[in-house]
């Protein structure tokens, strides 16, 4: 019988995978995708509890999380393009100067 626990464990696993992705990968785009993974794992929890407690607040908040993720992706990618245009690289550890 599938209980809320299963969803929480799944969310935790995806969350850790996201964190590992952020910490270990050099390519900014992959880091960005890992952040998306983290956001989605949060969404799973929200919806799981909304299903458990039978009210719709969780889903509404999940929608807000998605809008924030969309806005953040747009801005982040804009920064990446501007960055790439100047530094010709998207390796996280090569971008270490505050002012070039």
């Amino acid at each position: 019988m599938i209980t809320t626990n299963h969803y929480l464990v799944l969310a935790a696993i995806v969350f850790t995978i996201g964190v590992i992705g952020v910490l270990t990968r050099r390519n900014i785009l992959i880091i960005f995708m890992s952040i998306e993974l983290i956001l989605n794992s949060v969404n799973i929890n929200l919806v799981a509890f909304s299903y458990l407690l039978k009210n719709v607040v969780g889903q509404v908040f999940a929608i807000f999380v998605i809008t924030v993720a969309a806005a953040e992706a747009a801005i982040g990618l804009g920064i990446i393009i501007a960055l790439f245009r100047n530094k010709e690289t998207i390796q996280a550890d090569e971008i270490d100067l505050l002012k070039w």
Partner: protein
Amino acid sequence: MEHDIFGAIDEKTVLDANQVVINMGPQHPSTHGVLRVKLTLDGERVIDTDCIIGYLHRGTEKIVENRPYAAGVPYFDRTDYVAAVSNNLGYVECVEKMLGVEVPPRVQYIRTMMTEFQRIASHLLWLGTHALDIGAMTVFLYAFREREEILKLFEALFGARLTIHAFRIGGLWQDLPVGFLDACRRFSDTIGEHINEYEGLLTNNRIWLERTRDIGVISAQDAIDLGLTGPVLRGSGVNYDVRKARPYSAYADFDFDIPLGVHGDTYDRYLVRIEEMRQSNRIIQQCITRMPTGPIRAKAPRVIKPPVGEYYHSVEGPKGELGYYIVSEGKTSPYRVRIRPPTFINLQALKKLVKGHLVADVVAIIGTLDIVLGEIDR
């Protein structure tokens, strides 16, 4: 180098390169032949063009210097292979003028009629390919259906469809076959409403207007300075047509108008050529009604040896003023034959017309110049 907001000089990303040089041709569906255009682009906008031609150079002028006069005609069929009749007319009339031979009126009428048929055929081919480049597929089929009728008439009279060796120095090869004039009358009665068909499809078509209005604009002054002639020049409003300026053959006997554009953009040149087709049809109808009888050959000496001297004779080809400058040393073969190639000179205007437009407009502008690589490369 312009600086973007981070104050750094613009770097090259894969697609964001500042200036890209793209090769259009020599094998490209819309260059109407073996023309290579090197386009320097800034993103989508064209900054500079450089035309590389000569792929179809066959040295016609050199070969003709070693052939007798009459044998040169087939070579001039093949320079502008879309308008062979007017090529022949120019050369043949130039030699006749030097020989001092006056062809009988029947020949003049037939020559004028066939030249006007060739003008309509050439404009039909231009209309078909120009519309196809901009995306209207159906007009291509309609235009070529009418052009097929004209080619049938050529085949009946000259024996061939495209490179037809139409005229001989001093007259014609054979007289009109039986029923030829009726066939011409049938054609010229129907071409009128066919042209309305094309206009119906294109002239007031929003997208066609969008793609051709204010594209490739050239002022009258620049057009004359660039030596443009033909519909490209008349599109900018300059009233210069060799058939009116220096009437040759039997053009003085017919009344017809010269359509003129106003803005000098692709749309006006389109309107000018469509109207020219109607005017040619008017001439043809007058030819049919007033076709004189009489011999079809003048008294030309058996061996053609024009006196020592030179002569420049130009005719109004579908693409512009087609001139022949013949220098003769009194021998049986010409000393020097220079062809004034209208498309070669019109193509030179591409550099000025395309500057500042988008890549998609280059296709439309090459179409509106109506170029044929056979004549450009000779």
